[in-house]
């Protein structure tokens, strides 16, 4: 019995300690003392400082630090990041940019990506960017720029790491809303092309696709369906589906691609040149890229529309949408003086 005494004492001590822990007075239990307005619709409640902004946060009134600004996270089109001193190129983002409502931090990260990319200049020249207020930082940048001490620190020259991979948001998933723009990468660009970066055609801040000669595409609401309504291949022909790049004669007629020249449905009469629209497989080796991306830089399209479509078909599909005051006709007028003709970009395919 006696030999049990020490262990018994130990157990007793343990129980006492545990009960002391349990009996700790704690100020507010979850259930008791609910605030006067919890659960009510609140008639006489104080002004609630936490309101849902449903959009951009306003930076705190006086002198927020860069870290704070990053935390508050402006929308792409807002001034917080796009000031002349810090990120001047953002001032060129059009208001209609489809990424206009996306915040900078959604792609560039809240802290890591921003500081890693810029730290080599900012720490060297400005002593860090997480310390100090944004206003101080801008002032220092201004001063350094005036004194011409920013050698090597031109943001435009920096080899910035990629922001978020576009496909994280834009890869096609069954789970994603159908209204959200999404692609299957292998179908979006043809297989035989060298792997292309998204940014070759889509500027991240204004992602409407840009092609080759950097001209904005004419915006045709009906897109590929409009072209395919005449040009879609319906008959099966035994040939390579790829249609060679169309050559256009000076007067706008189309040279029949070799593969199609002997097809039964081809209208003969002009030899190698034909007015029948070439019919193609909708995929055409180019997936879901817009037809007019490659086939119609504005001048040639006008020529084609004028000479082939408008001439050949009176109740032309174009006419349903493209009446006198719309885009295409305007462009005809605008560019009538310019040199017409389609420059064959050799490496277009």
């Amino acid at each position, binding site marked *: 019995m006696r030999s049990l005494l020490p262990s018994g004492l130990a157990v007793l001590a343990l129980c006492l300690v545990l009960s002391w822990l349990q009996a700790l007075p704690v100020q507010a239990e979850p259930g008791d003392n609910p605030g006067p307005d919890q659960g009510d619709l609140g008639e006489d409640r104080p002004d609630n400082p936490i309101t849902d902004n449903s959009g951009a946060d306003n930076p705190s009134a006086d002198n927020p630090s860069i870290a704070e600004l990053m935390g508050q996270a402006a929308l792409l089109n807002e001034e917080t990041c796009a000031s002349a001193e810090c990120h001047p190129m953002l001032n060129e983002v059009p208001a209609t940019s489809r990424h206009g409502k996306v915040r900078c931090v959604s792609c560039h990260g809240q802290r890591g990506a921003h500081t890693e990319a810029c*730290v080599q200049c900012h720490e060297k020249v400005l002593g860090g960017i997480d310390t100090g207020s944004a206003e101080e930082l801008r002032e220092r940048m201004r001063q350094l720029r005036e004194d011409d001490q920013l050698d090597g620190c031109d943001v435009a020259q920096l080899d910035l790491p990629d922001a978020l991979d576009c496909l994280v948001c834009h890869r096609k998933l069954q789970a994603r809303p159908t209204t959200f723009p999404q692609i299957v990468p292998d179908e979006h660009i043809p297989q035989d092309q060298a792997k292309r970066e998204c940014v070759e055609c889509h500027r991240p801040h204004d992602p409407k696709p840009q092609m080759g000669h950097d001209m904005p595409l004419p915006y045709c609401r009906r897109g590929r369906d409009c072209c395919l309504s005449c040009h879609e291949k319906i008959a099966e022909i035994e040939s390579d589906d790829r249609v060679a790049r169309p050559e256009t004669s000076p007067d706008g007629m189309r040279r029949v691609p070799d593969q199609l020249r002997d097809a039964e449905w081809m209208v003969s009469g002009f030899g190698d040149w034909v007015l029948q629209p070439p019919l193609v497989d909708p995929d055409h080796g180019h997936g879901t890229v817009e037809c007019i991306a490659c086939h119609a830089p504005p001048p040639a399209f006008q020529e084609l529309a004028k000479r082939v479509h408008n001439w050949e078909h009176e109740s032309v599909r174009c006419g349903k949408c493209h009446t006198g005051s719309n885009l295409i006709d305007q462009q005809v007028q605008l560019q009538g003086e310019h040199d017409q003709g389609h420059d064959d970009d050799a490496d277009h395919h």
Partner: protein
Amino acid sequence: MNRPQLLTRRKMLGSLAKLLALGAAASTVSACGGTMAGLTLDDLLQKHYLDMDDEQLAALVARLEAAILERWGKPVTMATTPAKPGVRLAMTLNLSACIGCGQCAQGCFEENNQARDPEIKWITMLRSHHMKIWNLHDTETYTLPPTGEDDGNYYLPVACQQCDDPPCVRACPVKATWKEPDGITVVDYSWCIGCRYCMAACPYDARKFNWAPPDIPANELNPKQHYLGNRPRPYGVVEKCTFCVQRTREGHDTACVTVCPVGARRCADMNDPTTEVYAIVRGVKTIQLREDVGTEPRFYYYFSDGTT
């Protein structure tokens, strides 16, 4: 009766005295050079967070800020901002807008100083084969944004639901976790003993455990911290979503609300008629996870395109 006794009263008292002396010596030594790794006398004598007055809180926070400065070489500000009276936070998620990109999880990760290795993400993506029937037993957690082939799965981000009747609070044996007046269930990382009962109690698997000491690189450490929120957590404690207490109590949105590229999330006072959360909770058919368990979650999922 004449058996030699192994432990006499004298021996026991002697051993106890030696032990006490040793303990006193050790604590004196460590009190002089207290670090995050070791416990100081102040740490041992710390009162419960809710029992401390402002002065004690300020001293506590100053001590922790100094420890972080020593460990990471980066000055931080640690707040102890209390809840604003009359506010009751809730979060809504529009599943019609959500594209499953996982940036909420990543933004939360960066904002809240979560462990890198082994990685902790407060927001978990659940993956299921079914769109409408979310049997939580049939889902798997998937913490990366979907980058592979479309496997026909559906995704749901889940984090702490900030329940109004939280089983985790009930389960905690030491009252290290409690529900604040503004609705956020918080954890005092200095009080938590790491028993993980709360993790067992949570029906949403929302709580995460620190299997290692904090390993955040200094340039990624978010210096704007709250004692109950995103301060670096010591080895062996439990953590979870805190509705970005360091942000919401200063009037900003949570990190997940901010980084979502499609604006699917909202976190605001559900009693304030001017907020979208108020309108959604009262006007739209919302879905809550595991309603049958009776935890009264304050995270509302809904479809804005008419899917029910």
